[in-house]
């Protein structure tokens, strides 16, 4: 049992939708990331994804690409992210999930990464370039260390693959709302809602919908058939501009809208 399961259980008891906020480690800088974590937790975030910057982030749109480059230019490394997580754990018990790309993990050594990440205080990892077909070895490593490897479904995931994913999923299932990459855009969330209901038939693992959510209205729509929503670019964009207070207010607006609607 990690902080992720405990938080989802608490949300269920309180009949609340979960709010996952993505922050890039090292944006605007290390100190700024620590402040941002405090700010978004204060504003009502339930989970925080910590972005592990990669030079070639295939699944990310312009905002998070730029944030990754900023972090790398500032000297952020995978080991540096783990140091940052240790700092965060001095003051928060919010579930923290690392989100990055497989090459950094392989270079670090997958087994070593999971052990060090767990010890630092991460509860799981999201690696968007590792689909179910490529994740068996990593899943086994994570399972051994009680570390969550978050899996994905999308509107295009076939029923056969959806069933396979649900069978091995733990922590939560990341439901990608739209074909494309991360970033704020207008999306018909009823499509992923249908997918979420199919997931619900297969597993009790919570569902978090992400990609494209840029407003409180979008968060409410996206949360309809899900347990949580994930918001990244809309927050990172504000942090890139050094507007931590604005980011905090934005997250608070998401919290209020979700609590009012559900």
């Amino acid at each position, binding site marked *: 049992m990690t902080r992720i399961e405990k938080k989802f259980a608490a949300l269920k008891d309180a009949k609340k939708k979960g709010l996952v906020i993505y922050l890039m480690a090292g944006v605007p800088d290390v100190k700024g990331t620590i402040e941002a974590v405090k700010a978004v937790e204060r504003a009502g975030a339930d989970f925080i994804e910590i972005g592990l910057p*990669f*030079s*070639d*982030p*295939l*699944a990310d*749109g*312009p905002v998070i*690409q*730029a944030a990754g*480059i900023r972090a*790398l230019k500032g000297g952020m*490394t*995978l*080991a540096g992210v783990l140091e940052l997580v240790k700092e965060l754990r001095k003051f928060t018990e919010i579930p923290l999930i690392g989100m990055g*790309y*497989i*090459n*950094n*993990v*392989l*270079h*670090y050594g997958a087994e070593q990464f999971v052990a060090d990440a767990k010890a630092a205080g991460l509860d799981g990892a999201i690696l*968007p*370039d*590792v*689909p*179910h*077909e*490529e994740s068996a070895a990593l899943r086994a490593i994570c399972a051994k260390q009680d570390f969550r490897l978050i899996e*994905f*479904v*999308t509107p*295009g*995931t*076939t029923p056969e*693959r959806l069933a396979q994913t649900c069978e091995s999923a733990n922590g939560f299932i990341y439901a*990608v709302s*739209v*074909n*494309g*990459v991360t970033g704020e855009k207008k999306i018909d969330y009823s499509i992923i809602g249908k997918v979420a209901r199919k997931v619900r038939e297969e597993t009790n693992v919570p569902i978090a919908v992400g990609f494209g959510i840029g407003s409180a209205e979008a968060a409410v729509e996206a949360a309809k058939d899900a347990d949580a929503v994930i918001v990244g670019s809309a927050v990172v964009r504000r942090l890139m501009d050094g507007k931590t207070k604005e980011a905090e207010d934005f997250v608070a607006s998401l919290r209020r809208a979700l609590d009012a609607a559900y």
Partner: protein
Amino acid sequence: MTTGRFGKYGGQFVPEIVMPVLTELQAAYEKYKDDEDFKAEVRGYLERYAGRPTMLYYAKRLTEHYGGAKIYLKREDLLHTGAHKITNALGQAVLAKRMGKKRVIAETGAGQHGVATATAAALFGMECHVFMGTTDIERQKLNVFRMKLLGAQVIPVSSGTGTLKDATSEAIRYWAAHIEDTHYIIGSAVGPHPYPTIVRDFQSCIGNEIRAQAKKETGGRIDYLLACVGGGSNSIGTFYEFRDDVSVKKIGIEAGGRGEAEGDNAKTLSGTGKPGVLHGAYSYVLQDGDGQIVEAYSLSAGLDYPGVGPEHSYFKDAGIVEYVSVTDQEALGAFRRLSEIEGIIPALESAHALAYLEKLMPKTKKDEVVVLCLSGRGDKDVQMVAKALGEEL
């Protein structure tokens, strides 16, 4: 279905969004690759439009220059649009047509694959978007205009370093958002499965033709096979047919650029590259101590890619192919040499393979045979070479 491995290399390290379309492509390719009607259609375009088979030319003066083995050049430079790239572009465009896609997209570095894809799209009346880094657009203005003439839309990519690797990432991102009506014609034997296999299969006509032509020209004897390696499409096409022939020594030549320092070369297999994941495949990759991808450098825009096709990684580990490098300066020397001795201006990429003759030929005997894949013609590089040689145009 398998996720396509060459030994431990390859695979499908892509976002979930892309998985359905890779599965669709895999199924379509399985269906058509042995389909006589499909094969005849592709062959028809290759023979009557692109100019296959290309000649196997005995380079008599170059042979005499070295005084060793007989040197034969596989003249891919004589193909329509000036390089081997058209073979894959036409094959994949026919496949895209059969899959009912109305748009093709491509990434390009030097612009050769972009031009080839734009050409195939024009021929089949398909919409075409070519992703190209802003740095490369500046370096390759002529090819940018060629693509526009062919009706393609060139989309500038300013993310990252604005070069081929960023253009490739952006093409994959665009594809992820337009999977229903778009086929991504990847230009080299890289990317997630099934691309390395598809590109290799289309390009393996190079090796097949060499085998058949060598029978007539040399009684079938080949001692050395040489090809340059960037992403590795002309080289995999050259080597694949001979992968089990231990008597044929296969040498892949990478770009040694301007030195050994990180970021100064493209020696993915012959230098400091380590296995990792770039653009959907597990293969050798140039990366730093933290697993960040390092920008590759070469004077030749077709070779400055920090990854390499996964089958080459397998060939390296299995000892099937030897991978070496030559520098910018050595390639420039070979560029001039072939122009002066044989009246053939080679592409700077191919000039890398030619430059390796300097090292190889003194070790060869007169009765031996060297076959070198002359992957493209050098017209596109003339400006670049003039600049490198300090000449005003």
